[in-house]
């Protein structure tokens, strides 16, 4: 039975508890601090070491009553796609689908080729910078890691780097029957964790309720999103169009382009081989 996330923009208060809980549980180092000036979002994006990222869509408008500011926040995460670009691209088989239907990176198999990074239609997965250990690790803000993880090259993704990282849907917590850290920490239940079918039911009911109240609500990724990707195991309820949250409107599964690519290469090779044969052996 597949599990996933239903993340609801209408409930998010932008507290970033999910970001913090994820960093703590997964022992993910800081990406550094940059003041962006983009509303309250100084996290900016998901990365190899940031697996939840709260989008702050801030709008200002004027009417008779004066300046009005509206906010829509939503916590972005790996979509755990039905057909995942990252998983298909990975040449080592490091990325697998686990028993919970989530897309999981095995850090001890990944060799850091970076092909998954360019193959994710949502720009989620990224390489974790290779970091040293001991003193070097401290330089990168890894001092908070427990020594046993720092020294265990097998499990401590963050301790050594040079590999790809993204949300694991808390594989380790799920295995012992716990709820993923972000969903557990979310104070408003904007992030809901559960079995996909049940989440779909809940999401559809939620959209109906919101629409009755006149809120423009839509689901993103609950059904087949097109482009060969299928439905998303982590789907969203949004109040603005996807671009506003930096989500693609028409994502495409990259591997769908391969047949055409190989055909074009073969056509070019055949043409050149024929010409070459005429040039070199036409007289034989």
């Amino acid at each position, binding site marked *: 039975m597949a599990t996933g996330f239903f993340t609801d923009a209408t409930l998010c208060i932008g507290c970033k508890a999910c970001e913090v809980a994820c960093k703590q549980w997964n022992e993910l180092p800081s990406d550094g601090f940059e003041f962006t000036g983009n509303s309250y979002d100084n996290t900016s994006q998901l990365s190899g070491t940031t697996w939840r990222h709260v989008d702050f869509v801030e709008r200002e408008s004027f009417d008779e009553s004066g300046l009005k500011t509206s906010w829509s926040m939503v916590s972005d995460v790996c979509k755990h796609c039905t057909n995942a670009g990252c998983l298909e691209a990975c040449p080592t088989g490091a990325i697998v689908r686990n028993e919970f239907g989530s897309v999981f990176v095995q850090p001890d198999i990944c*060799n*850091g080729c970076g092909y998954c990074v360019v193959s994710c*239609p949502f*720009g989620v997965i990224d390489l974790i910078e290779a970091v040293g250990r001991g003193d070097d690790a401290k330089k990168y803000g890894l001092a908070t890691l427990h020594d046993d993880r720092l020294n265990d090259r097998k499990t401590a993704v963050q301790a050594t780097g040079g590999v790809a990282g993204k949300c694991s849907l808390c594989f380790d917590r799920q295995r012992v029957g716990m709820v993923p850290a972000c969903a557990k920490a979310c104070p408003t239940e904007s992030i809901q964790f559960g079995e996909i079918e049940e989440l779909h039911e809940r999401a559809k009911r939620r959209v109906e309720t919101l629409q009755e109240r006149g809120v423009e609500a839509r689901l993103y990724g609950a059904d087949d999103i097109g482009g060969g990707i299928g439905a998303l195991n982590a789907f969203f309820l949004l109040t603005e169009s996807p671009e506003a949250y930096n989500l*693609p409107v028409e994502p495409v599964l990259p591997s769908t382009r391969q047949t055409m690519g*190989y055909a074009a*290469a073969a056509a070019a*090779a055949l043409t050149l*081989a024929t010409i070459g044969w005429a040039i070199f052996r036409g007289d034989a």
Partner: protein
Amino acid sequence: MKSYYDRPLLKGPHWGANVVTYLFLGGIMGGLGLISLLSDDRPEPAMKKLRKATRYTAFALAAINPPILISHLGRPERFLNMLRIVKFKSPMSLGVWGLVLYSGAAGANALRELADDGIVPSALRYVAPSATVPIQALLGAFMAGYTGVLISATAIPLWAAGKRHIPAFSVCSGAASASALATLLSTLQGNHEVIPRLERLEMAASALEIVTIADFRKRGGRATAPLFEGRVGKRLRDYTILGGIVVPFVLNAVGGAVRLPKSIDALRSIAASMLTLIGGYVLRESLIEAGKLSANDPQAAFRQPS
């Protein structure tokens, strides 16, 4: 236009000069496979010399390229993890296997030549069946083309938009660069007889290459802009289009039409070959660099090329 503070939607490639070199040499290996097939089993001594030159060079490149590929990994010591599976959906996986098999075929062909030259015992000739010649050519075509498929089967808008063009002109560029390298080696060896043929092959490959690139450019739009505009576009125009295709084409055409004094003709061949090789390298480099720019443009990524 809607966006999220204009932040990039996608993550760009973490690839630098080593990957560019790998793609460039992979293309040459592919082209050498073809030339080795074309010059196979011919009685003329000049052809025999060319055949040997291409086979030794192909084998040398097959030995150099894997370390270059390995050097780009975040965890190079885990290179062998790529050999634990064969994955038809992943051009990166197929490519590594292509490289392994190509190296085997190139090694067999080089071994046969070594036996022929009396450098190794001639009995070793029978270890390497002659079927490895067409096999190397086939795997070579794959080597030259798969790198194009590899980058166009990604989410990067520029690369995705080139799903037909990029694999096609990668093959052409590989064949042109291989012809140029063979011309260069033959000129240095004083094997002048084969040069007109090599140069004609190079002209054919370059012509097909420039037509394909022009057609890709004509497609236009936001996705392809990073390759043809700005700093990358200028470099591509100067080093690949003009310096790497047009100028060598003219030089080769002159060489084919006019009888130049021997030393001047050799200089002409060398210049044309060097320019073609530089152009081939810059083509791959521009593709990777423009891919990074393309990844930073969210507007190109909201609606992804089919």
